[in-house]
């Protein structure tokens, strides 16, 4: 009960700071605001100086950012802050926690990379790294070793990859014989594995929350449009054919949200459970956007209308953090094994 109330408070605060009628707010101003609001402390463990709140709190923020097409890189930021707090080997951990909760940004990749290396010299690419231009470090979560890599170090190249999605910025971070700094190793062995799993789980969950927030806004905007747009001497929303279309979307979103908030209260949810949710939520978002454009008619195809902003973000969400094929296969395998 207590947790539910706290979550509502977060929704309210986030709506105030990032109202859904000011879509795609300025990124740098958003980042400042986000730090001031203390949201980076939310999921940081209490013994690391954070609030130690559950996944539902972070999800509330990501949900609201999805609603407003937030541009600040909260998905990697909240996850890396948590990981830094939970790191077992990081030198100057307290200093790191202080810095990353007050504005320094550590990013990480939202798609699987291919970084390998002999000894401590690493090579390969980390794809889909959000907002590397404003980050000091990227967190490298390799099996067996989690570490921070300074983005201005020799052997590290950062390249922006222009996206269809106008509300986000992604970069490739390429390592070419980069030598790890022992002081920046966060964990090794089983501890690194646990840290990595936790980091990924947080981000995948965040993408699900972002998607359902976005789905809500675009449905609301579409319903509003159909209420005001008149054809055949009546609001289009009066046609039952269109009412049913919108009602179907509402059913999809409402039901998916039930799963989101229920999994949010389940701290021991497995990767398959989170991944299955992510696959579903992002697919719901994508479909709501596909319908929204259709329901707007020609105007939905214009740049000045909001529809495409949501549609492009939804399509990106589908691909980030592992796509539906990957997660659904895992869910299927685990369900099969569980039914043995």
């Amino acid at each position, binding site marked *: 009960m207590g947790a539910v109330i706290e979550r509502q408070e977060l929704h309210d605060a986030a709506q105030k700071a990032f109202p859904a009628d000011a879509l795609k707010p300025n990124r740098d101003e958003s980042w400042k605001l986000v730090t001031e609001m203390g949201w980076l402390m939310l999921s940081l463990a209490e013994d690391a100086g954070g609030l130690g709140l559950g996944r539902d709190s972070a999800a509330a923020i990501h949900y609201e950012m999805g609603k407003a097409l937030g541009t600040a890189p909260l998905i990697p930021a909240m996850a890396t802050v948590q990981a830094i707090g939970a790191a077992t080997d990081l030198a100057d951990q307290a200093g790191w926690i202080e810095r990353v909760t007050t504005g320094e940004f550590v990013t990480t990749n939202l798609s699987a990379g291919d970084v390998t290396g002999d000894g401590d010299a690493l090579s390969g690419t980390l794809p889909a790294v959000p907002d590397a231009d404003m980050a000091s470090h990227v967190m490298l979560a390799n099996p067996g070793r989690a570490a921070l890599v300074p983005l201005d170090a020799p052997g590290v190249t950062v390249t922006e*990859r222009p996206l269809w999605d106008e509300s986000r910025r992604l970069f490739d971070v390429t390592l070419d014989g980069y030598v790890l700094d022992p002081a920046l190793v966060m964990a090794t062995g089983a501890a690194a594995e646990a840290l990595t799993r936790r980091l990924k789980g947080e981000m995948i969950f965040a993408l699900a929350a972002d998607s359902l927030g976005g789905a809500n806004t675009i449905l609301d905007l579409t319903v509003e449009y159909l209420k005001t747009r008149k054809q*055949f001497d009546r609001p289009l929303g009066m046609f039952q*054919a269109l009412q049913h279309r919108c009602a179907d979307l509402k059913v999809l979103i409402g039901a998916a949200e039930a799963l989101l908030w229920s999994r949010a209260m389940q701290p021991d949810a497995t990767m398959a459970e989170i991944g299955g949710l992510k696959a579903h939520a992002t697919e719901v978002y994508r479909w709501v956007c596909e319908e929204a454009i259709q329901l707007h008619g020609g105007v939905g195809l214009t740049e000045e209308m909001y529809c495409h902003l949501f549609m492009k973000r939804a*399509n990106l969400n589908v691909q980030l953090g592992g796509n539906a094929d990957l997660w659904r296969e895992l869910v299927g395998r685990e369900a099969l094994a569980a039914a043995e």
Partner: protein
Amino acid sequence: MSEQTDLDQLRSQVRAWLDANKPRDWRALSRTQDDFVKTQRDWFQKLVKAGYAIPHWPAKWPGGGRSLAEQKVIYEEIARADCPRLLLSFVSTYHAFATLHECGTPEQQDHYLPRILEGETWCQGFSEPNAGSDLASLKCKAERKGDVYVVNGQKIWSTMAQFADRCLLLVRTSSDGPKQAGITYLLMDMKSPGVTVRPIHQIQGDEEFAEIFLDNVEIPVSERVGEEGAGWAVANATLASERGLTLMELSYRMRGAAWRIAELIRKNGREEDAGVLRDFGKLVTQLDVATAIADQFLENRIKGIEGAGDASIVKNTYARALRDYSLLGLRLGGLDEQYVKPITFGDLNTGNWMADFMNSYAWTIAGGSDEVQRKIIAEKMLGMPKEPKGWVL
């Protein structure tokens, strides 16, 4: 039997000509709108000279007088050879032609038809910001002053109006009686004083259609097609002028582009992924369905059979298949497809999957939306009761 031989002969003729003359690098040459327009103009002139541009025009025109069966052969071969579609001249050779041919005066025909073959292009100025699906509610106002109409208002979504020489314009000449009764059909020179064209920025980074603003534009009464107030009938008589050829051609092209999905499957090493193969198999069958219904519709037309709603079934089947084709590409293409890539103008199956997805809406929204087609199927084909016209709160 001999008719079949004739068709076979035509097919080999067209095929041989296309082999020798088809533009091979048109996709690479269609990366910008200006280049695309140039490619289109060149290709149209080549087809006109070869006698394959206007097979549906009467026999007195070069390459005209072809039966629908012959037209089908020509379109099949052009699609098979993967040549550019005639997009820029589409409104000119179909809508403008049909309007003039069926409802125009001999003077109008003699004036405009030869110019179309010389490359004059037309756009369609029907839709308005507040008259989309409900086209009959259009408001663009024309007032008769002596022997001119003075036109004021706005048109929107006019495909390639920024490149057009002339416009098929629907205007309101009276607001008495039923909405349809006050509509008049005019032919407008796009260079007339008072005409402003503003291209519309589209979500795929393209500018395929435009707004047209009309500010005291004077159009001579001699440029009217049909009587004053008969514009609705003229528009309806000519809207269906392309008779299903376009959708047949597009279905063939889409079916022919299934290799793009196969290529993605191989590129990602998913040849042995049974789930992916099943999805691909499902799509290929869906493409076959779309091709079959488009083909059947045209075959029936050749035999003189057409039922109410038939065309709507063809359109909605094609449109959904086109959407699903792009969606499977998007899914299999993965994160790579979320990065912006150059677009190719004038093609719906380009393998730039986000752009293809966005372009697929042209077929669910334009030319009577998917929803409007369903209404036609429900009312005209299934005989379901119509929604009441007026409404009270």
